[in-house]
């Protein structure tokens, strides 16, 4: 017994703090003296440490394979049916027949060895010169992680590439999908064509909660405050008065088993101004931050000197493989900027990375598995190249994006080739034609404005253009109008080509004052080559005086209406590829070859409400008090005054005479 006790006896902890100044905030700690844990456990750990070298080897091979011929990978005609749900209407939802999916080649499977590290990071930049002379740059950073963040039994708490702050938010609030975008400026579809990933001005947030969430509203409220902390935005202004639950417009984009709209929350803050303080936390979510890779280009002084800036975070579960037995979590961080030809480019039709971002590329992010720059070099309708790109690379590819076959020049930053002898990559774009060309009108676009006069009633007009010469297609229009604009839904009219166009599906939820907004969703068939006009009248409500914002004469914002559509494509789409294609081609799941999904946001509206004079309450108080006081005074007088007969007093002449007489010493009259 005694021996056993001796064996385990160890003098415990001894720490030397006495010699240190206490106020210095940092005190040294001597670990060797500090600890002498039992030898047994130490050895155990040593045995368990497996040398970890296989991962790197694997990663290298994976990259090599991708580098080989990227075009071949995503244009190979494989037929893979989709696991995704259609984001459009429920009637179109079809169960993905995953059993029919033939075993296809997969970059991961072919390398023969399962990946050791279960998270990946990819980065990509697409530069698209616009016909107007502006340049559209779209960054995308994708972090995917083969884990289940929602597992209650075994909490995931060790983060490598996936940002900890977002991972914790997902598991804490049981989120299925989270989409948030911060946008400054308005995307001009008519001049610029459709964007890769549209976003309304201001902040848009939509979240699908897991069906296990009991109280979705409370979770939503807490989530918005947490996100406003993460992104330094005023998301705490999201409350029940601007939150809606769209029934069909916002279906999950990732793998989903929940399509019940009770678990969906959608809110837009059109007034929110997006600036550097939102960009900085967004950059911090990247594993390499802005220290290496494509993110070095993200300098806020340049990014916000542009005509359009949109940054977004999308988190959704995706299939790990084609069988989709397991899901992994994917974080997509996108950032789109349109640099203005006149403001930024000094009206010269010449752009370079340095001119746009005041930085050049020198190295990829070492944590990224792919890092690529695509430059759009599609030929103009006239048949000649619009721009000249330097340095030229041999690697080119074709991709079908938004119903259009486009040609890209590909710079693979993982190889030393694009950097050249200067060890830095500064892509130069030079327009061959000096004047802007007429752009083909986009197939689908929309605009919106407020009509009417006076401060009592008004009319919201939405014009939807279908510029397709011969195809009609349905669109889903969603309007969310604040409660203080009281919609007269009986005045709703949808007119196409001078004839009434009856929506085949209407979902309307009337507003309730100070509680929730109007929600109007309609499925409208757009005839070919037509303009459809949707009008609805409204009445402006008079708010309570404390409900007005500090600058009420600025007007009140009404968030953009959302158009979701499956737009018929001129080119056959490739509905097969999963993760191998360029990241920008699969932002929205592709359902079929003949059409692609597109979302269009209209302009937000600015509506004036009748604004009172805010000194009015005080004036009313003062006036009322004065009236009361006057009335009270006369009443008081009547009650208390007594009337007496008074001796008639001497006349004025007599009194003056008396004064004079007194002065003369004569007795008065």
């Amino acid at each position, binding site marked *: 017994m*005694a021996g056993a*006790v001796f064996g*385990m*006896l*160890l*003098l*415990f*902890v*001894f*720490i030397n703090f*006495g*010699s*240190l100044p206490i106020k*210095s*905030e*940092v*005190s*040294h*700690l*001597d*670990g*060797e003296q500090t*600890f002498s*844990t*039992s030898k047994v*456990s130490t050895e155990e750990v040593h045995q*368990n*440490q497996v*040398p*970890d*070298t296989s991962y790197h080897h694997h990663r290298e091979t994976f990259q090599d394979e991708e580098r080989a011929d990227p075009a071949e990978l995503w244009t190979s005609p494989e037929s893979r049916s989709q696991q995704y749900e259609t984001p459009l209407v429920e009637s179109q939802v079809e169960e993905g027949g995953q059993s029919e999916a033939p075993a296809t080649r997969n970059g991961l499977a072919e390398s023969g060895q399962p990946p050791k590290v279960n998270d990946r990071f990819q980065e990509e930049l697409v530069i698209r010169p616009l016909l107007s002379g502006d340049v559209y740059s779209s960054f995308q950073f994708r972090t995917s992680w083969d884990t289940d963040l929602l597992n209650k039994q075994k909490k995931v*708490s*060790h*983060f*490598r*590439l996936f940002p*900890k*702050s977002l991972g*914790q938010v997902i598991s804490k609030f049981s989120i299925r999908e989270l989409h948030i975008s911060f946008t400054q400026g308005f995307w001009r579809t008519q001049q610029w064509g459709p964007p890769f990933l549209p976003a309304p001005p201001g902040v848009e947030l939509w979240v699908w909660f897991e069906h296990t969430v009991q109280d979705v509203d409370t979770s939503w409220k*807490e989530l918005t*405050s*947490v996100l406003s*902390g993460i992104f330094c935005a005023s998301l705490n202004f999201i409350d029940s008065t601007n939150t809606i639950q769209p029934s069909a417009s916002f279906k999950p984009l990732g793998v989903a088993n929940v399509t019940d709209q009770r678990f969906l929350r959608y809110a837009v803050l059109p007034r929110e101004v997006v600036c550097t303080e939102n960009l900085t936390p967004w950059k911090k979510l990247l594993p390499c*931050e802005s*220290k*290496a890779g494509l993110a070095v280009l993200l300098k806020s002084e340049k990014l916000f000197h542009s005509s359009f800036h949109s940054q977004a975070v999308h988190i959704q579960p995706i299939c790990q493989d084609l069988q989709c037995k397991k899901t992994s979590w994917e974080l997509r961080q996108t950032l789109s900027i349109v640099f203005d030809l006149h403001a930024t480019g000094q009206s010269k039709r010449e752009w370079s990375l340095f001119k746009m971002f005041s930085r050049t590329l020198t190295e990829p992010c*070492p*944590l990224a598995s792919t890092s690529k720059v695509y430059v759009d070099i599609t030929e103009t309708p006239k048949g000649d190249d619009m721009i000249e790109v330097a340095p030229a690379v041999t690697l080119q590819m074709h991709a079908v994006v938004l119903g259009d076959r486009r040609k890209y020049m590909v710079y693979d930053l993982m190889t030393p080739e694009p950097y050249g002898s200067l060890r830095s990559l500064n892509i130069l774009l030079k327009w061959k034609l000096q004047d802007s060309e007429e752009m083909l009108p986009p197939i689908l676009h929309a605009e919106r404005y407020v009509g009417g006069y006076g401060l009592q009633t008004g009319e919201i007009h939405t014009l939807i253009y279908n510029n397709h010469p011969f195809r009609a297609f349905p669109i889903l229009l969603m309007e969310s109008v604040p409660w203080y604009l009281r919609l007269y839904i009986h005045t709703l009219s949808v007119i196409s080509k001078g004839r009434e166009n009856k929506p085949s599906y209407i979902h309307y939820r009337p507003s309730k004052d100070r509680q929730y907004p109007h929600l109007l969703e309609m499925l409208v068939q757009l005839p070919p080559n037509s303009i459809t006009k949707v009008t609805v009248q409204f009445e402006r409500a008079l708010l309570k005086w404390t409900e007005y914002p500090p600058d009420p004469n600025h007007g009140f914002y009404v968030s953009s209406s959302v158009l979701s559509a499956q737009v018929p494509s001129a080119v056959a789409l490739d509905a097969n590829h999963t993760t191998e294609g360029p990241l920008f081609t699969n932002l929205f799941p592709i359902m079929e070859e003949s059409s692609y999904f597109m979302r269009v946001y209209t302009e937000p509206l600015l509506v004036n409400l009748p604004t009172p004079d805010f000194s009015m309450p*005080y004036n009313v*108080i*003062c006036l009322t008090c004065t009236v*009361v*006081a*006057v009335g009270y*005074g006369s009443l*008081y007088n009547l*009650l*208390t005054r*007594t009337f*007496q007969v008074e001796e008639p007093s001497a006349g004025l002449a007599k009194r003056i005479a008396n004064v004079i007489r007194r002065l003369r010493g004569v007795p008065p009259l």
Partner: protein
Amino acid sequence: IIVMGCLCTDRGKYAALSIAAMVIVVGLPLWWKTTETYRASLPYSQIGELDTLQVTIPPDSSSPLNESPSGSLVIYVIPETSGLLPDGINVYMGIYRTAILRTSLHKEAKMEELLSVIGPKILRIIQTVTFTNNDIKASMSDRVPTGKFTKESLADSMRAFKSSPGNYEITFSLLNPDPKSHDLHWDIEEAVDKYIQPFLDKLSGVANFSVDSQILYYAILGVTPQSLPHVINPVEARLGKKVYIRFILQSCALFFCSTFLIILTAPLYIKDQNGATVQSNAFHSPRWGGIMVYNVNEKYSDNNRFPVQVNIDTVRVMEVFLAQLRLLLGVQLAYVPDDFLMESPANQGLTDWELDRFLWLRTLENIATATTTQTSLAQLLDEIGNIVIHDKIASQVYNAVIAIQAAIAELEAGNLGFAFQSSKEAILASEKAFFDPSLLHLLYFPDDQKFAIYIPLFLPMSVPILLSLLKIAKEFRERRNMAKKKD
């Protein structure tokens, strides 16, 4: 005519007086009642009593049980001749709540004599394993003026997080300043399970702990090695200290940051004031966390391709972190006399009696904190009449007072576990009451605005009443003087 006039002025006088009376009897109370702020009644006297807090803990008549309850200590007395303890060691402390005391005993000695011999020795044990005056003062350092306690206990108290009943969030961060040349791997999951979790399980009754880890890339300390104290600020921004989470969950976020700084050409060593290298290469910042610098010592041959694989020795790291964690949580180290032998807590990182000691101190600290919060809240509410006190706040205050009283009662009864729970409730309720946002709603309603609103009504109404009252008073005085003259 004179008689009539007298009657008439009398009528006017009565009218003026009755209007004044109506204003005073009906008008003023109505105004008072309608503009009053709602203030629920609070137990001011009970809070006042809490201010002078005295806890007496009776000596326990212990019975030698196998399962000794929390807060107790079983001391076995063995004769001096026993070979159970090595030479020079008189007291042995086990990892549970047991102690073995070796003392000289005569078989014929009476009970009183026996007690008088072992009494002081037992007291010594108790002082070691429970707490001393200094410990209490240190743990209440926020409320006791400095200078009353020793430097060391002050250091201890400043190092530890203040008592907070919420959740502790422990984050291990691996900072990799150069991912291009080093690919770091740490098996943190296993290390946490092995070293940190047993320790936290032991403390699970005290607070909720959550442990997570992250790897931060390109995190450069950004300071010269000489200015080590300034190291934290640049790192801090990267850790994402989550104020927002704390706000919602009312939890205390405890950040435990671990830095591995890898410098190829020049490894970084931390030196203490005497210039000697600190062997653990670690330091910690009070109430914030700890930092350990891990130097990669391996030599690279030229044919090594970057990034180089580095596996981090989690044992070495976790040893340091566990020690730092103990300090940060405020599991203070007892002063151990030379003839005491303490058993190492082995894997658990914490012995039962250490836990008890921690609980004792925390309970007292909680009670003190809750009491201070209550007193200052009562004082504040008493001083500022504008504050609205809702029933919700009043009930929180009542709950806190009841919980404090319960905690004191449990302490006196020797039920440490219950006392701790009650003190935790007390601190929660009192903080909730103190930080309730509804207290601030009407706080900044300035007086000049009130006057601006009241004056248009009150001035024109009160002037005629006052004037006529003055006139009546004057007349009354004159008439009395006249009556005197007549006499």
